[in-house]
């Protein structure tokens, strides 16, 4: 029961974190009208995952192991790219917001609005297939006992609860802190997703070095414990990390974080430049 609960919690958290930050962001800049886009991405991903899960469980054909891992891996790497784009996009729109140039913000949002749908879709879809397969097999097992599906559902519910609390916390901090904190957090999450994606591709045999471990702290942080689950669900920490994963993590986080911190530092002291509107027909 508790172990199934942890699975639901972990998979739920992985999906929820990015979505929560997205929602908090849109609420912060008072663009609630864009929220349906986010929910569209989330629902699409959930529907697709459940549909696939059902097909793969009850249909005549399943995915090969390599394909499952390759899909997970490729989606992860894609998600990292998009989340990184989003972090810098948010920082840019925020800067314009400060100068109250609503025209600019609107134009950025027009371009970014579709991107947000995709980010939400990937954040949920990445873990969706695996979760759906788990849920379907739990449904199949209900003949014996309803405990597993109850456990997993409670886990998912807890993940949503944690997400909600996190969201409330996000709303109460001021705007400039909000961008620095969420941006930094998203970069840490994205780095975890990247190394997790690398691990999937290693398991699929597409990348080498599955058995060359950089460190193994499974004894101190068992992946089945609640703290192991939280670490995995939030920053994708793997207690047994391969060299390839570790190096990819560093290669991503060091330059991205440096760039992000430099941008944030620069943003705070300088007020946004006032731009004069360009008259119609001047081009």
């Amino acid at each position, binding site marked *: 029961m508790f172990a*199934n609960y942890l699975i639901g919690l972990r998979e739920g958290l992985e999906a929820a974190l990015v979505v929560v930050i997205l929602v908090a962001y849109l609420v912060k800049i008072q663009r609630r009208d864009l929220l349906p886009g986010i929910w569209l991405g989330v629902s699409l991903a959930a529907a697709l995952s459940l*549909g696939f899960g059902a*097909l793969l469980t009850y249909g005549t*054909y*399943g*995915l090969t192991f390599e394909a499952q891992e390759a899909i997970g891996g490729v989606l992860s790497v894609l998600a990292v790219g998009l989340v990184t784009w989003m972090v810098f996009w948010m920082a840019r729109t925020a800067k314009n917001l400060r100068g109250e140039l609503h025209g600019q913000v609107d134009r950025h949002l027009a371009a970014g609005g579709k991107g947000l749908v995709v980010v939400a879709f990937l954040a949920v879809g990445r873990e969706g297939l695996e979760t759906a397969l788990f849920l379907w*097999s739990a449904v199949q097992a209900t003949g014996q006992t309803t405990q597993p599906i109850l456990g*997993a559902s409670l886990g998912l519910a807890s993940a949503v609860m944690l997400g909600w609390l996190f969201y409330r916390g996000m709303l109460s901090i001021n705007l400039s802190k909000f961008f620095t904190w969420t941006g930094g957090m998203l970069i840490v999450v994205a780095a975890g997703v990247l190394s997790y994606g690398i691990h999937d591709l290693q398991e699929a045999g597409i990348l080498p070095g599955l058995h060359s471990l950089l460190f193994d702290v499974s004894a101190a942080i068992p992946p089945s414990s609640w703290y192991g689950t939280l670490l995995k669900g939030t920053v994708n920490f793997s207690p047994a990390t391969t060299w390839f994963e570790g190096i990819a993590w560093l290669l991503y986080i060091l330059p991205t974080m440096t760039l992000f911190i430099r941008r944030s530092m620069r943003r705070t002291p300088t007020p946004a430049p006032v731009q004069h509107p360009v008259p119609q027909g001047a081009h």
Partner: protein
Amino acid sequence: MITARLPKPAAVAAACGILFVTACTPNASAGTAAGGTGELSVTSTAEDCSVSAATAESGPLTFTITNSGDQVTEFYLLAEDGLRIVSEVENIGPGISRDLVVNATPGSYYTVCKPGMVGDGVGRAAFTVTDSGTAVEPTGDEQAQIDAALTNYKAYVKDQVDQLLTGTEDFAAAYVAGNDDEARRLYPTTRMHFERVEPVAESFGDLDPKLDNREADLAEGEEWTGWHRIEKDLWPPAEAGYVPLTQAEREAVAAQLVEDTTTLHSSIQGIELSLDQLANGAIGLMDEVANGKVTGEEEIWSGTDLWDFQGNVEGARVLADGLRDLLEARDPELAATLDADFTSLSTELDKHRTSAPDAAQRDIAYVSYGDLASEDVKALSDRVNALSEPLSRITAALLG
């Protein structure tokens, strides 16, 4: 959802097509004959991982894994080397059953469960897939088969070189630490990984001599490094005049071996191969056998020629098997001849094997070359020659 309205197979086929070309595997209920025979049940508990049968016929297999423990568990089907993951299911919660469907080719495997998702797992057991007589791979068009053969072989080479590197590091560490018995044990079994993919290693011109030069191969003034330099030091010649390496010399030659193997390992990652390289590789391996191993010249100090021999033969067989679908279409008679000749050579070699057939890689053992009678050598040599002839026809059959 739109896909839900389509007939199931059509929807999945469409989905599979969108995702990956070879991403689909039939579920057990799909096959006509597979449903009854290919079903296995696995029970995973805290201490054990019991599989309902230790053998199965090739084709679609369904492992239904039931988690009877109280921790989340995982089930793995590992390849013959016990390392490469053939297939796996993760996240099996307590009280839950999940299916693992795998399109299994004949061969040796291991099954293992990992309750709590840590460590090497529990209940590791050998699992054998016998040949059911029906081809497992669907026969697509020829280019797809060629691509598959190249991809599979590249994966095989990478896997072997991965293991070569790990083995070499252990071997070098034992040698430097003065743990000579352990080094002598690791020497032949680690080299087998190299021997299996030797033609590919040889394609990196300067690395092969640095790793594998024998004393007799040395050019005037050339520095002797690599496996055979250490071999001589571990099995010093009986006659007088041999000066053992000092500790500093040991460290230098061991470090060089690891460094060169690491270079080989990184060079191999981006390797591109062609069909004729595969076909010719098999002949190249049997030439290796004929020129060095069957004559006992490769390992003059250690006498471990039969390990190398076996490695070369296994490597050639992997190549030939990889080209099998293509060959079957072009020249089925040649495919049959190859099978028979490989089998009789393996039988001949197995007579000299002293370890159990299911021994792990590092425990594989053969008699020393010096213990072979002259008629043993003759018998082996005859089998090698018999195999060389059909092997040399592969290239013509495929590219002609």
